[in-house]
């Protein structure tokens, strides 16, 4: 319908209407017309006001000045000229004032979340020396700890995460390590999904993941404050930490302070469930042994053979600058040294941090982290090697204080202690007996993405006497900006 048609139709209608009504309807129509006119005028006024407001806004925007070029520095005397030359020679090139980029076209695909997942890569290189010729035999039992004198690269990690769909987020950590002969080992450290939309404050996790036991177990090595794994964590959970295939349900309790309850049900088989259904390493004859006993390497008989990991964690704001996070955990499941043998591990953990409200780049801060664990391992008998059924009890703690004294620098001190009962076990087991370790460290973080650390270990154990080690660690991170839990 074009304009002329509308006009014609309208006039025809008007004529028809004016011709049609009876005499008494005319005043009524006039009133209606007046009403319509009044309403139209009201609408027009409102619109005009809106237009005026918009015009004003546009004018303000148009008046907004573009950045003017800063005055170009002009040499005042020879000294300044020299200073400038020196400065130019020693400093990295910086765009002079006035040439700063003014919103160039955005980089396609550059925004966080514009790819379907975040990808990052982190690498930890260790270099150092130990009084022990083979540090990994008795001293450094963690899988990511330095394994030998000289250089070692025991953790190069590819991390992936992103939203799977509106219901789940996905996470994967693939670790590459170099062994003593520089051959590459690969490990699917974690691969799990996590629910985002369960009701009642619940969250489900399923796949291969680090169990929520204590503070450090679920953390990746690049977030640790020291080069190596705390001794008691190694005793209870072995070189890899407590990790496995399974599912975890966690619940954020409706308390005014943070309280979270976790329950993990893990398959619990293999070396990543060290104190549980772990067949252990084969001896010279090829018989897999754990604590000296030949193991069963059995499959599940029922749900009672699964590994359960419950945890309770709470956090309190002690003041504006102090936070406390405390937790209690357990790991309960069968072990492989006999058909009815079971293991229980209990732990408590504490993390306290002070950081003032005007901290620069997160510094200064003081943090104190402590964990204490107790393991009760009911070992079966192995008559062939004359080992009776026995209960191995191990306990220990580590406590560490880290002080970020100026931006980018921190120094820390860790004390490790482990001990156990004298229950019958294989001689020379590096996972038993009394041992303590004293580790000062100094770290420099050039940026959030790189780190250099120096650590000394004074180590004393029943098995090896006294040992000294000094380790340097160099870390870098590439890719997506890491975000860390408290």
């Amino acid at each position, binding site marked *: 319908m074009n304009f002329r048609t509308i006009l014609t139709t309208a006039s025809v209608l008007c004529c028809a209407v004016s011709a049609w009504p009876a005499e008494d309807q005319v005043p009524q129509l006039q009133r209606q017309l007046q009403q319509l006119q009044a309403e139209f005028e009201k609408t027009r006024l409102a619109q005009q006001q809106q237009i005026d407001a918009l015009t004003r806004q546009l004018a303000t*925007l148009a*008046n907004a*000045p*573009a*950045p*003017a*070029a*800063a*005055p*170009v520095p002009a040499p*005042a005397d020879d000294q*300044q000229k020299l*200073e400038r030359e*020196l*400065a*130019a020679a*020693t*400093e*990295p090139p*910086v765009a002079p*004032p*006035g040439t*700063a*980029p*003014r*919103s*160039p*076209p*955005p*980089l396609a695909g*550059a925004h*966080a*979340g514009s790819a379907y997942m975040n990808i990052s890569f982190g690498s930890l290189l260790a270099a150092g020396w130990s009084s022990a010729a083979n540090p990994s035999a008795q001293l450094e039992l963690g899988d990511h700890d330095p394994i030998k004198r000289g250089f070692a690269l025991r953790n190069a990690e590819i991390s992936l995460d992103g939203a799977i769909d509106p219901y789940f987020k996905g996470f994967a950590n693939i670790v590459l390590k170099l062994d003593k002969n520089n051959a590459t080992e690969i490990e699917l450290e974690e691969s799990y999904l*996590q629910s*985002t939309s*369960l009701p009642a404050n619940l969250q489900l996790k399923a796949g291969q993941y680090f169990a929520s036991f204590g503070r450090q177990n679920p953390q990746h090595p690049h977030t640790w404050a020291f080069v190596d794994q705390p001794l008691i964590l190694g005793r209870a959970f072995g070189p890899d930490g407590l990790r496995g295939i399974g599912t975890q349900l966690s619940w*954020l309790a409706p308390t005014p*302070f*943070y309280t*979270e309850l976790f329950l993990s049900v893990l398959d619990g088989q293999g070396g990543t469930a060290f104190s549980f259904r772990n067949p252990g390493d084969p001896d010279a004859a090829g018989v897999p042994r754990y604590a000296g006993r030949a193991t069963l390497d059995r499959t599940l008989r029922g749900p009672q053979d699964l590994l359960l990991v419950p945890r309770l964690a709470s*956090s309190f*704001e002690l003041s*504006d600058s102090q*936070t406390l*996070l405390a937790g209690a955990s357990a790991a309960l499941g069968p072990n492989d040294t006999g058909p009815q043998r079971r293991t229980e591990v209990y732990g408590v953990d504490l993390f306290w*941090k002070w950081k003032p*409200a*005007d*901290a*620069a*780049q997160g510094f200064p801060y003081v943090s104190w982290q402590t964990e204490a664990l107790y393991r009760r391992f009911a070992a079966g008998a192995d008559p062939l090697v004359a080992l009776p059924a026995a209960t191995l009890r191990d306990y220990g703690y580590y406590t560490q204080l880290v002080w970020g004294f100026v931006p980018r620098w921190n120094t820390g001190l860790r004390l490790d202690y482990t001990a156990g009962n004298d229950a019958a076990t294989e001689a020379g087991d590096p996972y038993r007996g009394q041992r303590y370790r004293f580790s000062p460290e100094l770290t420099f973080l050039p*940026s*959030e*993405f790189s780190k250099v650390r120096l650590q000394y270990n004074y180590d004393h154990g029943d098995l090896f006497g006294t040992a000294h080690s000094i380790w340097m660690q160099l870390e870098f991170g590439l890719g997506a*900006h*890491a*975000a*860390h*839990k*408290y």
Partner: protein
Amino acid sequence: MKSFHRCLTLPLLTGLATAALAKLNVVATTPDLGALARAIGGDQIELTTLAKPSEDPHFVDAKPSFIVKLNHADALIEGGAELEAGWLTPLLEGARNPKLDPGRPGRIAGAEGVALLEVPTALDRSQGDIHASGNPHYLTDPLNARIVAAHIARALAELDATSAGVYQGNLKKFDDALEARLAEWQKLAAPFAGRPVVTYHNYWIYFGRRFNWPMELFLEPKPGIPPTPAHLAAVITKMKAGNLKVVTVQPYQHRKTAETVASHTGALVLDWPSFPGGPGTEGYLEWMDHLVKSTVAGFEQTR
């Protein structure tokens, strides 16, 4: 029987009354967003701001207590330009609050609809701590605050339709006040148009653009990289050569560095609060007023 009825109805009535009085629970990541939320939400909202006004917003700890705050929230106002990249994600993962899922009305990204400056053409961390979306300190420009305030008002009205009128009214009040103040600020700023200011971090570029005070010389050689002697020497040379007489520093930055530079150049050190929320700068407009007036006073002193 009567008492039984009372037993039933009393809690029911109390429950209803609480529901009617229940305020919208809003969490803002940084104090500038918090100040805007307060200006729009007024008494109708329960507001929690995660970062403290004196805190370095790039390095906030993801404290577990924040998880609880986010779990209870009806709305989250975040910068939306990666400023909180190091701490917000794990908090949201722990919060289990579908109301704050991206795309929901409860998830308010301040940067939406704001033209960000310095969007990098290449993502290269050798250039320091760069943000892929552009410079995230956009609320130092009052006109950007206006865009964000309107965004907050729209979102709050959508979440709490019964108070929509209040939010719109508060927005109008804020807009009118801002317009009046802006005219005043621009009048104050005009005599000093083109006067450059040295800042510690590349935080104030939007502010500088608005009032025509170039802020393109920094004590940091690159964003997030601490000042080096060589860089400071170059800054001092540039300051002496140009008419750069004002150096600004934020609460968490190293004031001594700024003082040293100032002592070599006869410049004045100004303390600029990074965010509203300090004494005398509680609201957004009071904060901006302080920034403009202290700068003008600084220029006057170092004419």
